[in-house]
């Protein structure tokens, strides 16, 4: 302490302090000296020097310990110790804060040429993306997995038996006219015919052949229909089939499951409805609609006109589903009197188009990196 009459260079006895009050007065004096010193602005170097002066090996705090505390009479030791600790903490905190603040200030004061330009990009490391169809598959898979649906797969090249007959669609059934089908050209003598599955439903049959109820599966995969390609048709597209069969599954369980899925996928505010429909492998069959996510179900677009996405109805048809037709159980040796269940087939491409506002299904399969990068 480069000052005259520095009390910490002397012992208490030398200073003539023998009472608690005297000790307190001395500590107050030292603290006033410290506070007046740090009140003056310093650069980082100045603060470092102050730190040595007050907290260093020969600094004030050490002097107090050596000159006041150690030789003090027993009755004063405790009060000196406490006062010293309190003072030391004060000095440490104040000096640490001041040093940190002055360093930050120093960096900020560096010249503009050394400062980073935050508007410039960092080093760009190429990172790939999940295909959007894969992302939607994953999201749906995760939702159904969370309520007990296992994931299974099946072949894309199928037999008419699995694709049609076992699903209660005999030859010359009118529904076959709606599912224009690719057939394979087979070598002479090969067992056939073979086709490209028109839906993921054959995996329902393959699963029930292998497992006994309870069955809860979803089946993601590619399906094929012989439609000429345009903005809304691709001869390959994607579905997730769902199937639940148990001893006590009812229509209410079915609608509850679908409801749960849609609210997870589109949000709690979405409204749902089931319209009676017809599929040979479900009964009752339904078409499942959600309130239009573009106009909030009002049928009126933000611009004021009719909402183009739902054609003003306020509803968007999402997929077909229903309770498994008892006739299907006959093909897999389940007892239709003892089991019941539901099935659904969700078109993934259409769902992704709806959710992300994509107007051309072909964009999914061109794999233009500019498209892929839009969905990181």
């Amino acid at each position, binding site marked *: 302490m480069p000052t005259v009459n520095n009390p910490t260079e002397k012992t208490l006895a030398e200073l003539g302090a023998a009472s608690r009050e005297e000790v307190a007065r001395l500590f107050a004096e030292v603290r006033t000296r410290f506070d007046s010193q740090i009140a003056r602005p310093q650069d980082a170097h100045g603060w470092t020097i102050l730190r040595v002066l007050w907290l260093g090996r020969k600094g004030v705090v050490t002097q107090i310990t050596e000159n006041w505390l150690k030789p003090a009479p027993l009755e004063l030791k405790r009060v000196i110790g406490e006062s010293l600790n309190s003072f030391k903490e004060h000095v440490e905190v104040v000096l640490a804060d001041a040093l940190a603040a002055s360093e930050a200030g120093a960096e900020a004061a560096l010249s503009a040429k050394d400062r980073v330009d935050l508007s410039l990009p960092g080093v760009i490391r190429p990172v790939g993306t999940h295909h959007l169809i894969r992302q939607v598959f994953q999201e749906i898979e995760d939702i159904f997995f969370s309520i007990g649906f296992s994931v299974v797969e099946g072949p894309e090249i199928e037999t008419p038996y699995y694709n049609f007959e076992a699903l209660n669609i005999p030859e010359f059934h009118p529904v076959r006219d709606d599912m224009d089908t690719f057939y394979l050209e087979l070598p002479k003598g090969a067992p056939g015919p073979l086709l490209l599955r028109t839906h993921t439903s054959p995996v329902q049959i393959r699963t029930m052949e292998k497992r006994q109820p309870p069955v809860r599966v979803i089946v993601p995969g590619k399906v094929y229909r012989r439609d000429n390609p345009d903005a809304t048709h691709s*001869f390959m597209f994607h579905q997730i089939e769902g199937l639940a069969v148990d001893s006590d599954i009812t229509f209410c369980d079915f609608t509850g499951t679908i409801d749960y899925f849609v609210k997870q996928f589109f949000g709690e505010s979405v409204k749902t409805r089931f319209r009676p429909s017809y599929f040979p492998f479900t009964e009752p069959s339904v078409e499942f609609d959600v309130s239009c996510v573009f106009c909030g179900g009002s049928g009126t677009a933000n611009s004021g006109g009719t909402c183009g996405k739902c054609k003003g109805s306020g509803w968007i048809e999402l997929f077909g589903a229903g309770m498994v037709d008892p006739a299907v159980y006959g093909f897999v040796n389940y007892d239709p009197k003892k089991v019941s269940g539901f099935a659904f087939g969700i078109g993934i491409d259409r769902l992704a188009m709806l959710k992300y506002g994509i107007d051309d299904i072909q964009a999914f399969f061109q794999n233009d990196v500019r498209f892929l990068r839009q969905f990181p």
Partner: protein
Amino acid sequence: MKVAYNWLKEFVDVTAPAEEIASRLALSGTNIAGIENGAHGTVIDAEVSSNRPDCLGMLGIAREISAIYQLPLKHIAPRPAESRSAKASDAVSVKIEAPELCGRFTARVVRGVKIQPSPTWLKNRLEAAGMASISNVVDISNYVLLELGHPLHTFDFDLLRNHSIVVRCAKAGEKLKTLDGIERSLDPGIPLVCDADGARAVGLGGIMGGGETEISFSTKNVLIECAWFDPVAIRRATRFLKLHTEASTRFGRGADPEMAETASRRCAELILQLAGGELLAGVVDVYPGKRAAKKITLTRAEFLRVMGADVPDKDLEAILSALGFAPVRVDDNRGAANSLLAAWECTQPSWRADVEREIDLVEEVARIYGLGNFPPRLPVARIAAARLPHHEAETRLRERLIGLGYHEAITIPHVAEERNDLFRPPDAQVAKLANPLSEEASVLKSTGFVTLAGAIEWNLNHGQRNVRLFEIGRQYRLVDGKPVETRVLTIGATGAAREQGLYDPAREYNFADLKGDLDAIGALSGGFRWEDGGPEWLNAAKRGTLRLGQEGNQPIGAAGLLAKRVADKFKFRQDVFLAELDLGPVYCMFYGVKNNRRYEPLPRLPGVERDFSVFLEDGKTFAEVKKAIEALGIPEVTSVAAADLFRGKNVPAGKYSLLVRVTFQSREATLTEAQINDFSGRIISALEKTLGASLRAR
């Protein structure tokens, strides 16, 4: 099916506006394509599903509305005035020789009609339904088809030879010129309406009439045919003939055999009204297909088992009655309302061939009652859910590829055969489509290469020259005529590995990038073994074959630079690198390696690196260098790495310079300078001896 609102009102006194009716119909099973307000009033466009041919007429739609709104259905009971002297059965004979194709055939004869244009009201109704007006008699048959949903055909009675109708199977090679002027070759199994005791075909039964006996403006006498044909026979025939008509749609889905006679009477009534003439008494009605109405029982227990929530007796009975099922309680608890033991015996109406089981009745009640009245409930799962067996392996693989900068692609597997052959191994049998949409999509890809090269082609053609893609997809092949789908990973890359940026210069993607990236995913499965060779469509100097696990295992894939010959076919003007792996073994090894992976304690002592710069003859490989060093058996050698490689300046011709970095490490003690010098000396002499390497510097 276009449903004119004012026409509908002739069958049911519904007052609700068309929009509401359309919405109620949609919510009870009749899909609605739209509502039009045209010149002839409001028309609801109903998309009737293929199981509901009864709704392909005003009467059927009206029945739905009567059930929905619980309003009485106004049935139709035509009573045309008949001749007192002449009988139909004296004028015409009908014989059905193919009762399996034709279950009923009715004939009525109207004499002395005046064929003329239809009155405006009739024209308007047909127009509202999307049909053109021809003449009064033809229009009437179409009107009745729309009204009652049952097809009819009218003949010029005088052009029918012998007035003896025979319905039989077409014969092989037989031909008929139909109303549309097309001569059609027939197939046995097609129902034919013939005259002259079966000698001449005058109509494709249930599909279209013949040209020679059609109604013209000179027609005086008319024969009304109203029949019933077997749905499967009609669908077979329409598929064979590629001919679909209003009649074939209705018969093909299943018309109402009981309606045939009523529709004929209705037609006669309207002809008398609009074309005049005299109706011969009675009807010639041959009905070999008549069947007793089927009884179906519905129990509340089954209803609850399927639907999970109840419908009160009152509603259930009202719905079934309105739809024509005439329910009668038959259980022992008949007195108790809403009894859990309730059972109803129902009678299948002739127009509802689609309803023949208890479950069908459940659906009928539920759809009219309203599916929204069954409260949703999330069922409890009773078994644990499982992911696909390879889920973890595939997820890790996919994440790693994405981290390495590859975008996931999904391609359509249909390709041109010529393109597929560019990448097809000679022994792979192609899966060819019998009915492709085009030559460009005529086979299923035998490898993933072909479609990934296609995806790169798309990008290059659209100005994207830096492309890194991968696809986890399938190969489709035939093996002994059986389909085999193999899960493969295909990788493709071209353009810059690193684009010109602020901090780094650009660098083109090269073979080492491909190899490094493959090794990064190979690490998940214990690492790939790279060997010389590969398919001939890869550049012979820049390709490799990959194996997993033991030496000598089957190759699981190949990687390399696309050969110029193939690149030229795609018009690629820059290097394109491709790789494909069979994922079966990759996933299998993933789990094997993962489960056997054990912790290796980290060395406590620092390792020491020594670099050896050697000249090697071109053709000598790093693998040989590594093998020579490892053959010394020095346990302290923990790694041998290639640190630098160059040719050219200061390197003798025919040689290249390789910097080999060897790391020495002991688990027991710090290595001394003397030990390291000893190891180094042995390494140098080994390289000199076995590889003829010359030491450049150290």
